C-alpha cells in the first residue's frame, strides 16, 4: 500500500483529501511537522514500528483470532468443578442482552441527564445488593472481592484509629495477598498489621478461642467470610461480630451473594461492613474477567465518609416526582482530593454491576431462595457421593457450593486423570493448605446435573482404584 491509499475502516479522516483540507485550516504541512513542534527530535521514534501487517478484512481478522482462541477448552465442553473465587453459574439470557446493550457497553463518564439510565441502573445495583445484605449503603462496584476486602479493612482502620486486622487463615491466598498489599505501607506509621487467626480443623470454621485471644486494643477489624474460601458456612457469625465489637473493632464480612436466598443477611449477625464478589450474579467467568467486588454498610455518616467508591445518590429535579441522581460526599474521592482521598476510585466494573442488578431483579426473593436450595442440594449430593468412595473423603460438613475433598493420591495425578474424562477436577489445595493433605476444592452449582456428578464418581472410582 502506498502512503495515499491507507484508508482504515476505523479512521474516517485517514482519507487523504480530508486530511489535506484539515491541515490547510491548521496551516501545517503534515503530521511530522506538527509533532516536531511539540516533541523534541531526540524523543521521536523516527522509524516505523516493527509489527505484524494489519488485517483489514473483518473476516480474516475473525479467523485469525479464532485460530488462536480455539486452542482453549471451555467449561462448556468439559465438566468443571473449579470455583475458588470464580464460579460457573447459569447466566440468564436477559443479563447477556443488557450487558451487551450498546449504550451501557460503550458509555463512559457522561452527565447525570444524558446518562440518566446509567445512573439509575447504578442506583438500582446499590439498592438490590443492599436488600440481599440487609444494609442501606453501597456504591459503584469495585474490581473484585479482594479489592473490596482491602478497602473494607482500610475503612475499619480509619474508623477506629487502630492498626491491626485479624484475618482467618483459611482465606483465599490470592485474596490474602491483595489484602496484605492494601495493608502494607511505604511509611512505618501507615502500616496495618495483618494477623492470621486459626480455623477449627474439625469444622473449617473460625477458631473462636484463637480469635478471642487475638482481639486486642489494636484490633481495627475482624475480617471473616461466609461462606469462606473452603466453602464452609460460618455458623458462629454472630459470635464473631460480638467478639469484634467487645474488643472495640469493626466486624467485616466477605460474602458470596448467590448464597443469600438461603443464608442470613450479614446485617442480621452484626456485621458492620460487608464486602464480596458479585460475579455469580449474571457474569460469565471470562477466564477471571467476570469479577465484580462490592462494599456495603449501614447508613451512618461515619461509615459513608470512609468509602473510596463513588456513591450514587437519588435526587429530586425541577419537575415534581421526577428522579435524578448525583454523587454523595464526592469530596472524599480521589477525583476530588487526590492524595488526601479515601484510597482511590477509578474505572472498575460498572457494566457488571448493571448486569448484577438485572440478575437480582429477574430472580427476585423466590428465585434467590430456590437457586440457593438447588446449590445446597447438588453440592451436598456431590460431597456425599465422593465421601463414599474409597480413597476420597470430605472433611467439612457445613458448606455452601464448595467443599474440599481429600484423596489418597496426589491431587495433581487425580486431576490429570480426570482431564482424560473431560473433567476439570477441583482446585488443588495441597500447596495452600498442606495440613489438609492431598485436598482439592470442589465447586458444585446448579450447572451440574445429577448425571455429571455420577460421571465424576465413576471417573474417580477408576482413578482412585
Amino acid at each position, binding site marked *: 500500500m502506498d502512503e495515499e491509499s491507507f484508508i482504515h475502516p476505523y479512521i474516517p479522516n485517514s482519507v487523504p483529501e480530508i486530511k489535506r483540507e484539515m491541515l490547510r485550516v491548521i496551516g501545517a504541512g503534515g503530521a511530522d511537522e506538527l509533532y516536531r513542534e511539540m516533541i523534541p527530535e531526540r524523543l521521536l521514534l523516527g522509524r516505523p514500528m516493527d509489527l505484524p501487517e494489519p488485517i483489514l478484512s473483518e473476516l480474516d481478522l475473525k479467523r485469525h483470532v479464532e485460530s488462536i482462541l480455539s486452542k*482453549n477448552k471451555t467449561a462448556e465442553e468439559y465438566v*468443571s468443578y473449579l470455583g475458588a473465587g470464580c464460579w460457573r453459574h447459569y447466566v440468564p439470557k436477559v443479563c447477556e442482552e443488557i450487558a451487551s446493550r450498546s449504550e451501557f457497553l460503550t458509555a463512559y463518564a457522561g452527565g447525570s441527564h444524558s446518562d440518566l439510565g446509567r445512573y439509575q441502573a447504578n442506583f438500582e445495583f446499590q439498592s438490590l445488593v443492599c*436488600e440481599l445484605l440487609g444494609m442501606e449503603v453501597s456504591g459503584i462496584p469495585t474490581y473484585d472481592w479482594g479489592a473490596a476486602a482491602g478497602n473494607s479493612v482500610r475503612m475499619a482502620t480509619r474508623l477506629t484509629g487502630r492498626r491491626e486486622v485479624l484475618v482467618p487463615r483459611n482465606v483465599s491466598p490470592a485474596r490474602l495477598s491483595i489484602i496484605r498489599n492494601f495493608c502494607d505501607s511505604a511509611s512505618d506509621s501507615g502500616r496495618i498489621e495483618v494477623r492470621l487467626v486459626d480455623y477449627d480443623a474439625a469444622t473449617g470454621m473460625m477458631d473462636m478461642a484463637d480469635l478471642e485471644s487475638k482481639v486486642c486494643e489494636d484490633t481495627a477489624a475482624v475480617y471473616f467470610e461466609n461462606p469462606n474460601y473452603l466453602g464452609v458456612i460460618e455458623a458462629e457469625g454472630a459470635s464473631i461480630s460480638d467478639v469484634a465489637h467487645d474488643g472495640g473493632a469493626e466486624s467485616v464480612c466477605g460474602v458470596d451473594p448467590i448464597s443469600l436466598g438461603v443464608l442470613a443477611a450479614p446485617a442480621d449477625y452484626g456485621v458492620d461492613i460487608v464486602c464480596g464478589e458479585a460475579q455469580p450474579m449474571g457474569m460469565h467467568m471470562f477466564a477471571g474477567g467476570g469479577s465484580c467486588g462490592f462494599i456495603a454498610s449501614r447508613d451512618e455518616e461515619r461509615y459513608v465518609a470512609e468509602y473510596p467508591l463513588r456513591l450514587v445518590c437519588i435526587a429530586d429535579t425541577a419537575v415534581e416526582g421526577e428522579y435524578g441522581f448525583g454523587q454523595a460526599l464526592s469530596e472524599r474521592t480521589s477525583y476530588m482530593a487526590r492524595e488526601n482521598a479515601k484510597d482511590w476510585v477509578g474505572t472498575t466494573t460498572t457494566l457488571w454491576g448493571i448486569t448484577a442488578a*438485572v440478575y437480582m431483579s429477574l430472580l427476585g426473593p423466590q428465585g434467590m431462595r430456590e437457586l440457593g436450595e438447588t446449590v445446597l442440594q447438588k453440592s451436598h449430593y456431590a460431597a456425599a457421593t465422593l465421601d463414599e468412595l474409597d480413597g476420597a473423603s470430605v472433611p467439612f460438613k457445613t458448606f455452601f457450593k464448595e467443599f474440599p475433598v481429600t484423596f489418597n493420591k496426589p491431587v495433581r495425578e487425580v486431576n490429570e486423570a480426570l482431564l482424560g474424562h473431560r473433567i476439570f477436577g477441583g482446585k488443588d489445595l495441597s500447596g495452600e493448605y498442606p495440613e489438609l493433605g492431598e485436598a482439592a476444592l470442589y465447586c458444585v452449582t446448579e450447572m451440574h446435573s445429577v448425571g455429571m456428578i455420577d460421571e465424576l464418581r465413576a471417573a474417580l472410582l477408576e482413578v482412585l482404584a
Partner: protein
Amino acid sequence: MRVREYHAPRWSEPIIHELSTRGERGFVPPGAEPKIKAKVGPAEGFVPEAMRRRKPPGLPELSQAQVLRHYLRLSQMTLGMETDIDIGVGTCTMKYSPKINEELAAMIMDVHPLQPEETIQGILEMAYEFGDVFLREISGMDAFTFQPPGGSAGCYNNALMMRRYHRDNGEPERDAVVTTIFSHPCDAATPATAGFKVITLYPDPETGLPDTEALKEAVGPRTAGCFITNPEDTGIFNRSIDEWTGIVHDAGGLCSYDQANANAILGVTRAREAGFDMLFFNLHKTFSSPHGSSGPGSAAIGVTGELEEYLPVPVIVKRDGVYSLDYDRPRSIGKVRDFMGNLQVVVRSYAWCMAMGARGLREAAEVSMINNQYLVEKVRKIRGASLPFRGRRLDQARWSLEKLKEETGVGVGDVNRRIVDYGVQSMFTSHHPWLVPEPFTPEPCETYSKADIDYWCAVLERVCEEAYRDPELVKTAPHNSSNHRLTFDGFDDPGRWAMSWRAYKRKRGKD
C-alpha cells in the same frame, strides 16, 4: 452548520422496586433432580439454624419481559458513545470499539482461570504475544502483565513495585513520590494508598508545565520515584521528560509513566526513550476496548528488564512454544487482582491491534493529533472560550469558559447541561483542583470525522451564543434530555442522602 433537532428518550421510569407485583417472577432456576432430593433431603438442613435466612430479601418481583423492558428503557436513557459524538469526554474520549471484537471476546466466557494450562493455551498465547509483539515495540519496555483491572489499579500496581524495589535495595526510607497537578489523580492517590508521601508540582502559568528546577528541588534521599502523565491533562507534552527521569534516577528513584491515554503518540515517542522504568496503558482507551459505563477495563503494565521480577503473579511465560503461568517469583509484589485480570479486554485490544498494524497505529495517532489541531482552530473562534497556556497541544486541550461566565453568568456546568439538548454528551471538565477556571477538555480522537468535529463545535458555539442571548435558557437546561435540572442539594447531608431505595423510603417517610 445545521444543529440537529433532538430529544432524548424520556420514560419517567420508576425505580425497579416500584414496578414489583407480588408473586410475579422473571426466572426459574433449575431444581435438584429427584435422585438428588431422595439422597440428601431438603436443603434447609444444610444451613445451621443461626445462619438461615429468616426474612426473604426485599428484591422486587417482576415477570421477565417487565425486567427486560425496564433495563432497555434505562439503556435508551444512556447516551453511549456509539450513538453520540463523544468528543467532549477528553483525557479519555472513547474510540470506536469494533463490534466483531465483542464476539471474539465472548470466546473465553466459559473459560475458568484455574483450568489446567494445556486447556488455556489460546488465551495465554494471546496475552503473551500481545505484550511481547505489540506492546514491547510500542513502548520499548521489556515485559508486560495485564493483571490490574483498570487504569488507576495499574498505577497502584506500579506504586507497589516501587515500594518493594526500594525495600529490596535496602532503602525502605524512600517514602516520597513526585507528581504534577495535571497528571491524573491516580498518580497521587494510588501511591498515597501505598503509603507514600506525595509532592505535587504546579505549572508555570505561561507554559502550563512545572519548571524543571522545581523537580530538582523536590527530589532527594527520600525520593522513591515519580508518577507522571505525559502528555498531561492539558494536552501539553513535557519536552523535558527525559531530563526529568534523569533527575529522578540521579536521586535514586524510579519513574512510572501514566500512558493511560497514549493515543497521540503511538509509534511517535516511547516510554523507553523518555527514560521510564515502568508504565501503564489503558486498554479500555488507547487500545479500543469499550468502557462499559466504567469498567471492566485493563491496565497493561510494562516494565524494564530490571523490574520484571517485581511483576504480580502469575506471569505468563513461554518455553519451547508452550505457555505457562509462573508463580515462583520471590520478588513479586504478589497479587493486585485475583486470577489474571480482565482477559476479555486483552482479546479485544489484541484484535484491534492486529487490525491496525504499525501503520494503522501511527495513523490513529496522527489523525487524533490533527483532529485536535483542527478543533483548536474552530473552538478558538467561539465567543466566551479561551485556551490557557501557550503552545500546541497533542490530542486534547484544557479550555476555559471563564470569559463566558464573566460576561453572561453562564458557567461550564450550565453549558454542559445545555449541550445535551442537542444530542451531545456532557463534557469532561477537569479533575480537581480547577486550576483552569470553568474548564472543559475536548479530545477528538481518530474515530471522529471532520463532519463530526464540525458538528460538535457547532453545538458548543450555539450554546455559547445562547448564553449571550438568553442566559436563562442555558441555566435552566436541560430541556430535551431524559430528565430535568437537579434541585436536590442534600448530597452531603446524612439526613437526606440515599444510596439505596430502602434508605430513600425511610428518609422520605414512604415505608
